[in-house]
């Protein structure tokens, strides 16, 4: 449930300090999206939080730090140029909206007809065409006991992306990895995300052949598979 203004007033300091996690953070951001007054309040507190960071203590990094950072930047290659971040920002909300619609007609490919509700199909296909993509699949994430813990969307386009939302109050906080697997179960690609207070999410422009992906596994910091989702086949 989206919190009201009085709850946001209470949450605002921790939200501004970057300390709010999971569902509370998502709820607060949802409220801010539709409440200019609360948004202004939080923005003012964010400026205070940022100013306080200037008081952080300095410390000499370990010997060789600078060389290691520069090596790493060199390995990463040239940073993305301006057009790409703009595109990526625009894509994620649009694609997320499309994904919600697509959840009802998962596993479609543009250009193929089915006998399902043609209205949804038209919306879904229009969304994909707007994005320039060719397929969008959605699946529920489950724990080993079959409990529903979230959802994952896999989009094939330029670039392709993955969006995942996971909620499990029993999950320890920390670093996790989402792994895309081929239909044979072999890893295709993976990316990390953080779980905090039982919640985590990932928006990831993945460089992988999405049509090869058959399932998704979420692994904890020890590499143990904790959740999985079977994606529908492409019809």
């Amino acid at each position, binding site marked *: 449930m989206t919190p009201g203004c009085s709850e946001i007033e209470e949450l605002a300091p921790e939200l501004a300090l970057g300390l709010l996690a999971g569902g509370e953070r998502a709820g607060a951001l949802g409220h801010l999206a539709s409440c200019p007054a609360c948004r202004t309040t939080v923005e003012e507190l964010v400026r205070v939080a940022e100013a306080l960071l200037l008081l952080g203590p300095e410390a000499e990094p370990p010997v060789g730090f600078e060389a290691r950072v520069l090596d*790493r930047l060199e390995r*990463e290659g040239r940073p993305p140029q301006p057009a790409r971040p703009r595109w990526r920002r625009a894509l994620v909300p649009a694609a997320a909206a499309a994904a919600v619609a697509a959840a009802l007609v998962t596993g479609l490919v543009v250009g193929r007809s089915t006998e399902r509700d043609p209205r949804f199909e038209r919306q879904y296909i229009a969304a994909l065409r707007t994005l320039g993509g060719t397929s969008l699949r959605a699946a529920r994430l489950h724990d080993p006991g079959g409990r529903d813990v979230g959802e994952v969307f896999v989009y094939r386009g330029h670039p392709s992306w993955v969006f995942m939302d996971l909620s499990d109050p029993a999950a320890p906080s920390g670093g996790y990895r989402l792994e895309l697997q081929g239909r044979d179960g072999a890893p295709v690609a993976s990316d990390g995300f953080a779980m905090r207070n039982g919640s985590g999410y990932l928006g990831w422009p993945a460089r992988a052949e999405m049509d090869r992906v058959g399932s998704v596994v979420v692994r904890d910091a020890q590499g143990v598979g904790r959740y999985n989702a079977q994606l529908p086949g492409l019809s």
Partner: protein
Amino acid sequence: MWDAPDDALVAGLGAGDADAAVALVRRFQRRIYGLALTIVGDPVTAEDVAQETFARAWRHAAAYDARRASVATWLLTIARNLSIDAVRLRRPEPLNPEALAALSLADRAQDPADQAVRESERSRVQGALARLPAEQRRALVLAAIGGRTAKEICETEGVPLGTAKTRIRAAMIKLRVDLESQGQEETDR
């Protein structure tokens, strides 16, 4: 390059300029690493966080908006968020809250490369912080620089959760008003 303004270095970084990357890392590494070390309390994790901070700056330099935040606050915010994520998983032992709370008012080593503007901004914030009641200042420093949640602060301080939240909120609101009034006075001069 070494004398270039901070935002020019970020622009260079966004264009893939290796010299700009070297200059930016040299200029900010002590502050980024220092903040990370303060929050995570472990040199190895702090280096991981500091490296990742510069890697993210490299990847997202093109999205940096100088109207939104100074380069220092942009980088420090990235470092703080990464540190908070890391600390949930890896902090070997809780930082000493006494030492952390004292940081805000401690004398700082003077970096000859510091710009006058930066020092002025720092001293304004430091002055405003010093004017807060001690218990509010302490809660705010633990949260803002130490990355502690209100729940963690209530446990280490031995106060109810509501009290910890109230202290943080009251301190942030007072600080905002104080900094705004200082900014207004400077404008009026």
